[in-house]
């Protein structure tokens, strides 16, 4: 599925509280005791505390103690907003990277077309895997707006289409996936591959003009792998090939690229970068161990052992918790104050 989160342009998508929490949690520093001693008095009902929602690789424990019901809370000071100009270079670098991925994808599609023409299912599946993984390395590019249709044609799934896989709108990588992992003769898929070829070239031409805002770019730091959980390892987007691990690995690469370009912008803020690095290393190591156990090849979802599945899901979750702190340290403006609803008898007409 290729739904991408629509950025909420108004209203500071990026999170007053995220920053606040991060500041409170990390600012308080050190390890927080995660369990209340049995003899300790109960927390008064008017307050609550959440402790240790996530432990980051034993390096640091996040903890939140907050008050609700209007009890006084002293918000931590906001970080100064990041100037929009600071994103120019990271986004330009990523755009160049993405264009390069599409170029590599075109070469894989040519391989795919050759294999399909030769009616060679094994070679065609291998080429499809390479092409698909390349496409998912685009990662941080919001393929919305003018290129939304192209994205649907290239990577759209049958869900949401009236008629499902029989819909004339169902095309591209997943249409070919359906044929390659079912009984269709590979040669019959050649038309779809040629159309894919055309669409990818068109997208590569359009990519330099596709808008990537700082807000979107910062948000994609965690959304690429959110998509992997929701759509890829769940199997939702790869119902026939089951190649969710391969696709997730592509998402990890895209995420690493985003983080690498943002590293100088984030700097030392909130200690986000060390946490992200630690978690991404653990995730990459998990993926490597899985590949090693499967003869150097990333297995389909269904071939993961339970232990491998737990390891991959767990390290991915850990990476996501760390990555979800990124947008909060990259706000480009202070969150706006929400105006109060005036009492009924007050007219505020101009």
């Amino acid at each position: 599925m290729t739904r991408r989160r629509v950025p909420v342009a108004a209203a500071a998508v990026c999170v007053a509280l995220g920053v606040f929490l991060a500041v409170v949690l990390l600012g308080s520093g050190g390890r927080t005791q995660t369990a209340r001693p049995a003899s300790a008095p109960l927390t008064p009902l008017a307050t609550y505390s959440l402790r240790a929602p996530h432990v980051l690789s034993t390096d640091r424990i996040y903890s939140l103690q907050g008050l609700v019901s209007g009890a006084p809370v002293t918000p931590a000071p906001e970080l100064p907003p990041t100037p929009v100009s600071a994103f120019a270079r990271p986004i330009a670098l990523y755009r160049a990277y993405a264009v390069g991925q599409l170029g590599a994808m075109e070469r894989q599609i040519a391989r795919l077309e050759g294999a399909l023409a030769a009616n060679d299912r094994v070679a065609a599946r291998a080429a499809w895997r390479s092409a698909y993984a390349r496409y998912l390395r685009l990662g941080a590019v919001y393929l919305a707006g003018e290129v939304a249709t192209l994205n649907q044609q290239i990577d759209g799934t049958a869900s949401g289409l009236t008629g499902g896989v029989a819909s004339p709108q169902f095309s591209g990588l997943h249409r070919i996936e359906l044929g390659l992992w079912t009984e269709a003769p590979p040669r019959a898929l050649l038309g779809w591959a040629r159309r894919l070829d055309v669409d990818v070239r068109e997208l590569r031409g359009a990519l330099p003009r596709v808008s990537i805002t700082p807000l979107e770019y910062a948000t994609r730091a965690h959304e690429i792998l959110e998509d992997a959980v929701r759509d890829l390892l769940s199997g939702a987007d790869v119902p026939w090939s089951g190649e969710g691990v391969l696709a997730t690995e592509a998402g990890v690469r895209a995420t690493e690229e985003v983080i690498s370009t943002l590293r100088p912008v984030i700097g030392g803020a909130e200690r986000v970068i060390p946490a992200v690095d630690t978690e991404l290393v653990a995730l990459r190591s998990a993926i490597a161990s899985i590949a090693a156990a499967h003869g150097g090849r990333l297995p389909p979802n269904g071939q993961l052992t339970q232990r491998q599945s737990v390891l991959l899901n767990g390290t991915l979750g850990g990476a996501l918790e760390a990555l979800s702190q990124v947008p909060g340290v990259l706000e480009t403006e202070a969150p706006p104050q929400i105006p109060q609803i005036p009492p009924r008898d007050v007219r505020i007409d101009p």
Partner: protein
Amino acid sequence: MSPLDRRGFLTRSAALLGAGGVGGIGGLARASAQAQGAASATAPSAAQEWNVSQAQLEAREPFDGPHQAGILTPAPAQATFAALDSIAPDRGTLREALQALSRRARELTVGGPIPLLEVDAPPVDSGVLGPVNAPDALTVTIAFGASLFDGRYGLGAQRPRELVTMPTFAIDDLDPAQSHGDMLLQICAHERDTVTHTLRELLRTVRGSLQLRWMIDGFSGAARGPSPHNSPRNLFAFRDGTANPPTSDPALMDQLVWAGRGEPAWAVGGTYQVARIIRMHVEFWDRVGMSEQENMIGRVRASGAPLGGTDEFEDPRYDLDPEGKRIPLTAHIRTANPRTPATADQRILRRGFNYTRGFDPAGALDQGLMFVAFNQSPTRQFATVQKRLLAEPMIDYITPVGGGYFFVPPGARGEADWVGSGLFVAT
């Protein structure tokens, strides 16, 4: 009365009684003794120590009435939704199954001691709730899907005007194995064991005629205040149901809920039930900033008040915020119910339940909302709202994976009647 129904538990019991034998009489005596034992166990002093409120267990919601129960009835804590397909070979068998279903459902909503008829026969009730079935405010709401009106039973001409197979909306990823169906049973009660027992008994009653197609269990968030009126929370932690039209207003229910004009005569007083299993990607949601969450919904998470307000039931005053500076134009509450004169007749009565059912292959919790809406016209109401919601940013955090469109017939008129009887009077 109906012919003998081999599937109906009550009829089966009656047949056993009619057979008369020694077992029958002895069994009755035993049932009576069991009932007395159970009655003495409900002495108030003992009850005070129980976790379960006896008053709550003894609450009854009448099965019969102009409209079925479980529509305007306030949602209790527990629910199960079970879609069934008919495998009845003919119209007469389907009719018998429906009669038996209502009969058994009515009996369970009344409650009472379980008769023990023959010690060497399987017990007539699973007995999961003990020797006496407490009603526990049980409601069983029986609804029909469009497929029941295909050619099999000659019901095509009586299909409710707007009853169709639920369309696939653009955000849907419908799994055929948990979508649609000939019938939908909505079973609600305060306690989980009551609901579980009811499903088991009802399925037994119609075994061989109506078979499970998909099912899901639901629960309501507990009433955690601050006032008894506050709406419970869904699994995105926001209050759900705040803007429901008041069920205490019969004229409004006639405008928004009950089907009438243009419907076949048997369907008047029924309602369309939209049931959608909406997976909520809760881990993803939890990694989104608080203000973004609140902007997506349009409400303050803690209080449930519209943004800029302090009270859950406060008017969001969109008239003072035409540009969405306070509540974004794409916020869920604003998109779902813009509160304009033009959208007033699009309002729906929601009666959803949270669900949780393990986790998926990606290790993500399989949780969400069993969305239920009752409305007079799914075209004018539910589908119109749903299409508008395709523009809201929240769609990235949810995936509708199943459910269907159903029609809830009017209620049975008494013990001699049954839900759906109107379908069979013409012939």
